[in-house]
């Protein structure tokens, strides 16, 4: 009797991608790409500059990074306050634990890395050392959702789902430079732990054109409309605002409700807007359609008995491709054109 042979190593479910003809039109997206390709006014390093400014008056603010200060704009703070910056090295677990220890001693630590590394690698340390003890650590993470073409290792398409499930954690997805500046100030004052998605580098200024003020736990109506209600967060609010303009040219009137706080969700405002009726409700997020803003909104409506035709714009529940960001955004349907086209289709259904 011989042992059965070990099967060959091809027994996995997925196969390699089919090779396509090279596309010379798009340059490869740099991992550190900022979103200045939107062709708008921009503000430089809104997070880093705001934090450096806050720290002038707040001796309790300290910064820590796991070898990504330059790529999370924390280097601006580090240059302004070198003695208050801790380079923790490429060690995300101790980044979070040490931030917890500093918070225990009365400091307000801002810990930065990429969203994938905080959400996936350091989860237990955020959960047990920070959230379970309700310590005021601010975890600020770059490369949210699909903002890099580097592939799944760097694309945090499920960070909101992961973080939303953590008790006691406030979860934020700001839209632009204005939102980032205001949210940075707000979380510095907030007593509990926070996870904030970070836009770095040259960050578009969009909300400066609106009568808008960021508040933790509040969704804000940026514009009203009668046919469609967009409920969006993060960079998708820039896109829903532009899609609303494009749709208006075709006679479709869209409201845009910006919900930068994913948790605690502003259920009252969302229900009030959705209950108005007669509008297609479209949740839009730079995140997997699983477990993020869209599902949070859907659950909120269901639990309150608000019935609406509901659709989601977001990233598919799969590991995404590598490539240039504009190509990928079009491929996954989160460009302004794709949003407008989806809405038109849904309105005809």
């Amino acid at each position, binding site marked *: 009797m011989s042992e059965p042979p070990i099967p060959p190593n091809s027994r996995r479910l997925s196969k390699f991608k089919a090779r396509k003809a090279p596309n010379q039109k798009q340059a490869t997206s740099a991992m550190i790409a900022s979103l200045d390709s939107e062709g708008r006014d921009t503000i430089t390093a809104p997070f880093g500059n705001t934090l450096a400014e806050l720290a002038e008056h707040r001796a309790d603010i300290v910064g820590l990074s796991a070898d990504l200060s330059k790529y999370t704009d924390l280097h601006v703070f580090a240059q302004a306050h070198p003695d208050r910056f801790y380079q*923790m*090295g490429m060690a995300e677990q101790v980044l979070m634990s*040490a931030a917890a220890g500093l918070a225990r001693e009365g400091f307000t630590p801002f810990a930065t890395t990429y969203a994938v590394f905080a959400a996936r690698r350091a989860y237990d340390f955020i959960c047990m050392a920070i959230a379970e003890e309700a310590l005021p650590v601010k975890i600020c993470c770059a490369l949210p959702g699909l903002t890099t073409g580097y592939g799944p290792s760097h694309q945090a398409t499920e960070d909101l789902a992961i973080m939303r499930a953590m008790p006691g954690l406030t979860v934020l997805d700001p839209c632009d430079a204005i939102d980032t500046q205001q949210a940075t100030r707000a979380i510095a004052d907030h007593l509990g732990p926070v996870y904030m998605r970070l836009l770095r580098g040259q960050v578009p200024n969009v909300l400066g054109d609106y009568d808008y003020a960021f508040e933790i736990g509040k969704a804000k109506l940026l514009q009203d409309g009668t046919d469609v209600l967009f409920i969006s967060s993060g960079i998708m609010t820039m896109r829903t605002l532009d899609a609303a303009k494009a749709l208006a040219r075709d006679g479709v009137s869209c409201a845009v409700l910006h919900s930068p706080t994913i948790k605690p969700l502003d259920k009252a405002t969302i229900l009030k807007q959705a209950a108005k009726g007669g509008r297609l409700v479209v949740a839009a997020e730079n995140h997997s359609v699983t477990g993020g803003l869209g599902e949070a909104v859907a659950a909120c409506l269901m639990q309150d008995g608000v019935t609406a035709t509901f659709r989601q714009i977001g990233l598919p529940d799969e590991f995404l491709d590598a490539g240039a960001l504009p190509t990928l955004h079009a491929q996954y349907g989160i460009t302004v054109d794709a949003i407008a086209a989806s809405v038109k289709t849904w309105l005809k259904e």
Partner: protein
Amino acid sequence: MTQATNTRLSNTSLARRAWAIRRHALLMAQVQGQGYIGQALGAADLLATSYFHAMTYRADDPEWEGRDRFYLSIGHYAIALYAALIEAGILPEDEIETYGMDESRMPMSGMAAYTPGMEITGGSLGHGLGIAVGAAMGLKRKANPAFVYNLLSDGELGEGSTWEAVMSAAQHGLDNLIAIVDFNDQQADGKTTQALARGSQSAQWQAFGWFAQEIDGNDLDALVSAFDAARNHRAPCPRVIICNTTMCKGIPFLEEREITHFVRVEADEWTKALAIHDANKPE
């Protein structure tokens, strides 16, 4: 505050403290028929040395800013720390009978929100030393001369996060951090030295830039010398005391049990253990 500091006791008194810690732990274990008594008996001497020789604290003000911090990362050692906190007067002795009960301030696994003197929530292993790194940084920023002690287990040496913290403490020159490793060579599935903790522990920590001492963790004279050396060492580096201990120390019939991570003790054996313990009360 008159209770501001520890009183430097003789080794005889420390022996008495360690004896009392073991007795508190045996009584708590009897309440629940609890199996982590082995760790409590093994760690009683290093806890006695921490709380009655090395550390500065105020029993009536467990959050006093000037206290030395004691971080227990091994949540299941809670029974041992409760015993020490009771002996130190931080927890009242009459709460022993609530150990592990609903609504008790003394849950089976140590949690900061439940118990005065339990500084951190342990249990998920490999967390304590990293938190201690941040606290030690914070104390330095505040020019607070207190020490941070972290009691970790040999099993935690298998967690990668422990070594992130080891490197970090050395990198940041945290001379106010004292790690105490309870090396009893037992973890859930068997011997720690047959899992990941191989070779000379003191050599490994030294290689990472720590001032390392390796001692018999059930020898009070050795413990006192090591804690003194750790506190008084002059190089700007973190310190570790690797304490080789015997699980169930002091109760011979339990010491001999083969599997001691979670000791099976029959109901009638608690009385026998207490009788043996009480017969060995030091002066």
